[in-house]
């Protein structure tokens, strides 16, 4: 089994709740899509070509100081459970991990991980440079990969078109190849039924939203990923500023909605949130969807300062470590669904008890 302790910061630095508005914004991700000239894109390339891409990228990585202390994982050589584990930890995409039966893992699929940044190789595009940070940190997340992009581009020739910019397998990414997304928790807007308007508004201004795991994933636990939809025809800085402005506005709306909830439905909301906390503290079997839903309530309670002895970091940790592959990893064996539910409830009880210094 994959030894996660060898990853820089365990691959969970982005959960530390250190950033701005960390109780509402869990994390910020910025990625650049790049392809290497001279090869077909990863989906079209032959096995040999993808392996050649990987070895060329590996060579380039070896010569970049910023990447010196990183780890390269050959995703194509990992068993399915480990690939799922990396995906649950938000370190590789579903596509790179080859989790869909109709799209198995590709030869040459790999990920290079350093503290806060990663490079996926042979994903939909040859290269996906990513920065993942805690809280709302759009500008600094971009800065972390901008230099990396420049250095890498000096060592491997990127596919670049005078008119269309950086070329990508999917035309929705062409131009800057830049996608910035913010994972944000909006229970106030959902409870006050304002969320529909907010999300519709996003789409009108060139932004889009997705679920916790990105493209194609469902919205669970009131967690939304808001990102730029267009990548061409605007400068990188413009795309980032725009997203920052809109997300700040969404945060304000969420804060207003929370005030309204407390004012108009104070004890009803309070009761609902404490019940969720009670369930997490004492339940003996929990599905992942239940945990997500209760965690959403508890997170809101912490944001409203109704619960004061719990840290946002603990809540972030629970979000990741109560997923199926993480539980199996912690238990050291595969778990059936009902075993996983028992293990999940045990884990959640233990973490909440230790964080609050009380008994289980």
């Amino acid at each position: 089994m994959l030894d996660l302790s060898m990853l820089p910061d365990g691959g969970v630095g982005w959960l530390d709740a250190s950033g701005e508005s960390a109780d509402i914004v869990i994390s910020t991700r910025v990625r650049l899509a790049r392809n290497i000239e001279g090869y077909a894109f990863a989906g079209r390339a032959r096995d040999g070509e993808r392996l050649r891409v990987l070895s060329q990228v590996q060579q380039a990585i070896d010569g970049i100081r910023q990447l010196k202390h990183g780890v390269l994982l050959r995703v194509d050589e990992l068993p399915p459970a480990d690939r799922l584990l990396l995906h649950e930890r938000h370190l590789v995409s579903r596509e790179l991990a080859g989790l869909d039966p109709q799209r198995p893992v590709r030869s040459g699929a790999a990920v290079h991980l350093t503290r806060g940044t990663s490079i996926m190789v042979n994903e939909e595009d040859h290269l996906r440079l990513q920065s993942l940070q805690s809280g709302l940190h759009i500008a600094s997340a971009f800065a972390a990969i901008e230099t990396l992009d420049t250095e890498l581009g000096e060592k491997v020739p990127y596919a670049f078109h005078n008119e269309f910019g950086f070329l990508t397998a999917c035309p929705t990414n062409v131009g800057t190849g830049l996608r910035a997304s913010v994972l944000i928790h909006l229970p106030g807007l959902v409870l006050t039924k304002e969320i529909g308007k907010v999300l519709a508004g996003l789409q009108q201004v060139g932004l889009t939203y997705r679920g916790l795991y990105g493209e194609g994933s469902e919205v669970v636990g009131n967690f939304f990923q808001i990102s730029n939809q267009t990548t061409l025809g605007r400068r990188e800085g413009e795309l980032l500023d725009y997203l920052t402005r809109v997300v700040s506005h969404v945060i304000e709306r969420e804060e207003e909605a929370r005030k309204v909830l407390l004012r108009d439905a104070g004890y009803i909301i309070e009761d609902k949130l404490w019940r969720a906390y009670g369930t997490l503290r004492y339940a003996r079997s929990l599905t992942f969807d239940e945990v997500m839903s209760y965690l959403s309530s508890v997170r809101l309670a912490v944001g409203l300062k109704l619960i004061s002895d719990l840290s946002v970091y603990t809540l972030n940790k629970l979000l990741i470590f109560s997923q199926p592959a993480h539980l199996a990893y912690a238990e050291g064996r595969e778990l059936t669904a009902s075993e996983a539910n028992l293990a999940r409830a045990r884990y959640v009880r233990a973490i909440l008890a230790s964080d609050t210094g009380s008994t289980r």
Partner: protein
Amino acid sequence: MVCDVCKEADAVIQLTEVEGTGVRQLHLCERCAAERGVETAAPSPKPQIADFLQSVHQQMQATQGDAARCAFCSSTFRDFRSTGRLGCAHCYDAFEKSMGDLLRRIHGNARHIGRRYEPPASGALPDGGTANELRDRLRRAIDSEQFELAANIRDRLRSLD
């Protein structure tokens, strides 16, 4: 979990309604939620590219035959229409007639104004490769009229002999 209202579809939304002094929790499918004016926590929107490709299908056929083929990776325009993904960087030129229009519709613009890029001088030829792979690449380079690249590959092939 099934929807509390229609009892048929899977519930994807948990709706908490506050009524007077009581709270009611409903688990709703996408459709029943929409009927209550909550399109909100519905599954993420599907990537728009597929819908889009369909909608411009006819217009494109007028300008770009399905059989149009990229000389570098052998992808056809039909491949692109069915997968939504291009085969290689050269497809953008091979299908250029349709690309400008397509990009304008997706992004509202078809001209990159972001960061410019110059590839490294030595990077014209990807590293290494077996003789067979190099021969493959030589053919592609000639087909796509990249004669300088072709000459480089030919030299590399000679040095392998």
